[in-house]
């Protein structure tokens, strides 16, 4: 039997997904037995040029982690889509933006200001207020840098995706299940999320009673009881909206679920589902008291409800102050 071809690529993400692939332990040898790794910049030598030369559709499986933040990443997503038979959006970043996607509350200009301007946040020496430019003319020719986008997009907002694997990072078990499905050619229908179709609450061993809360606490404010549902105790636990598959790891160590597995099937917007669930357990019918409970308990609603899924949400990002910002070219001479 001829070996399959496997590619693994890394766009806007932390790199944890690359390591998560190795968490399948000795089964990685099985993977090496069955697949030729044609492209995995993190672990094996390989050039984009080599991928460009492959015939279209010649890679059997491509595990793509990370969101699309720059033009280079978008190009790689399009390239790997063209070259791969099966493109899997691997992990939370590729599927729903994850933590890098939270930068969608800012624009490119604001992000660059924070990074390159001398300010309170960074202490970089940049008296001329220089910014990275897509083109720089040097005597030897032009140097290119990728264009940084205002809005981070998920992989499936950029190219057609066959399957997605949830989790930040995906659980070893799920990775192996996905690889097995591919090896044995027992793939679910196209577009499916490879994982369980239920919520974290379903896997959580805590005792649940009727939920009525007068105050939301942040994790550092209380020492939660180990037996009772965390949401009942006033902690913002995302288990109600989050896809199962992690065996409720966080609630089991007395920490609320933060929603890294993303929305369950049939949920259009993770944050909306969570908002809806949290609002219904607030024990008050007085508008002013409700407002107080919400504003005191949830000072950062976007970070709480969309910690992993802002780029995937229905609104995708916060409102831009002035619509589309057009980059102004600065003379490269100023750089010298």
């Amino acid at each position, binding site marked *: 039997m001829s070996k399959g071809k496997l590619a693994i690529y890394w766009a806007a993400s932390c790199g944890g997904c690359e390591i998560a692939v190795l968490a399948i332990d000795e089964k990685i040898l099985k993977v090496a037995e069955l697949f030729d790794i044609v492209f995995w910049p993190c672990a094996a030598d390989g050039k984009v040029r080599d991928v460009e030369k492959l015939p279209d559709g010649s890679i059997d499986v491509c595990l793509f982690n990370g969101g699309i933040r720059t033009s280079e990443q978008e190009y790689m997503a399009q390239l790997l889509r063209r070259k791969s038979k099966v493109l899997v959006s691997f992990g939370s970043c590729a599927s729903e933006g994850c933590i890098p996607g939270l930068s969608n509350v800012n624009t490119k200009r604001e992000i660059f200001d924070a990074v390159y301007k001398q300010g309170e946040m960074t202490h970089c020496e940049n008296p001329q207020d220089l910014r990275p430019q897509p083109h720089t003319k040097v005597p030897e020719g032009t140097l290119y840098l990728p264009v940084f986008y205002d809005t981070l997009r998920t992989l499936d907002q950029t190219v057609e995706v066959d399957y997605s694997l949830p989790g930040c990072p995906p659980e070893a078990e799920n990775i192996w299940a996905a690889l097995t499905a591919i090896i044995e050619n027992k793939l679910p229908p196209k577009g499916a999320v490879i994982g369980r179709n239920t919520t974290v609450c379903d896997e959580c061993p805590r005792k649940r009673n009727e939920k009525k809360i007068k105050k939301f606490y942040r994790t550092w404010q209380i020492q939660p009881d180990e037996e009772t549902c965390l949401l009942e105790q006033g902690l913002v636990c995302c288990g109600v909206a989050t896809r199962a598959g992690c065996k409720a790891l966080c609630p089991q160590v007395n920490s609320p679920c933060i929603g890294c597995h993303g929305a369950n099937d049939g949920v259009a917007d993770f944050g909306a589902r969570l908002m809806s669930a949290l609002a219904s357990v607030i024990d008050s019918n007085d*508008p002013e008291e409700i407002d107080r409970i*919400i504003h005191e308990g949830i000072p950062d609603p976007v970070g709480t409800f969309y910690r992993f899924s802002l780029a995937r949400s229905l609104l995708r990002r916060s409102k831009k102050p002035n619509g589309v910002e057009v980059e102004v070219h600065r003379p490269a001479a100023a750089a010298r």
Partner: protein
Amino acid sequence: MRSPPRPRLRAADRGARAARIASAAVGAPQALVRPPNGNSMRRRHAWKTFFYKNSWADEAMSNENFEPKIVGFLCNWCSYRAADLAGSARIKYAPNVRIIRVMCSGRVDPSFVFKALAQGADGVMIAGCHPGECHYIEQNYKAMRRYAMLKHTLTAMGVEPERVRLVWASAAEGQLLAEHIDALVADVRKLGPLCWSRNWEESPERLKALEEIVHEHAEAMEVQA
């Protein structure tokens, strides 16, 4: 006369093609947008789409002739009947609201509101029975809490909270509902168009950079052995 059939694309090409179309839609200069020609059914549909799309865009661009699009989620037992009453009593109110009947204001999930705003609505109205009068005992209190939560999040996302409103109107209050609708339309008109999808646009540099990568690779990466 039939136009020649479009070449079929291989499956692998479709993703890239979709991406190209999406890219083109973002940065296409106005001159490139041409109305479709021909008169077959499909073309007629294309015309319709073209017309609505562009009239929407024009409308959204200028504030002068701006007619707000409002989506209204009205509870079956009170507010929808109030709207009925307003109709049969010939009470005049702004025609900008598109009413969707739901069984209860408690049925309105925040995702309905997000979806409406993301797909072109300038404002959303949720209307239900007065507190204590819910047909389902206390679901309008849930609506009240969800609305508070929703407004908190919308403000953080940069949406003016005045665009989304929760009002109470009993089946007898056609006049009140009409006033609420008028007030919301007037407020949204003052705020101007929302045009949420414009927030997703990238600068035209993006397309240029994508093209350049291909050239750059072709030129720079061949190393003579």
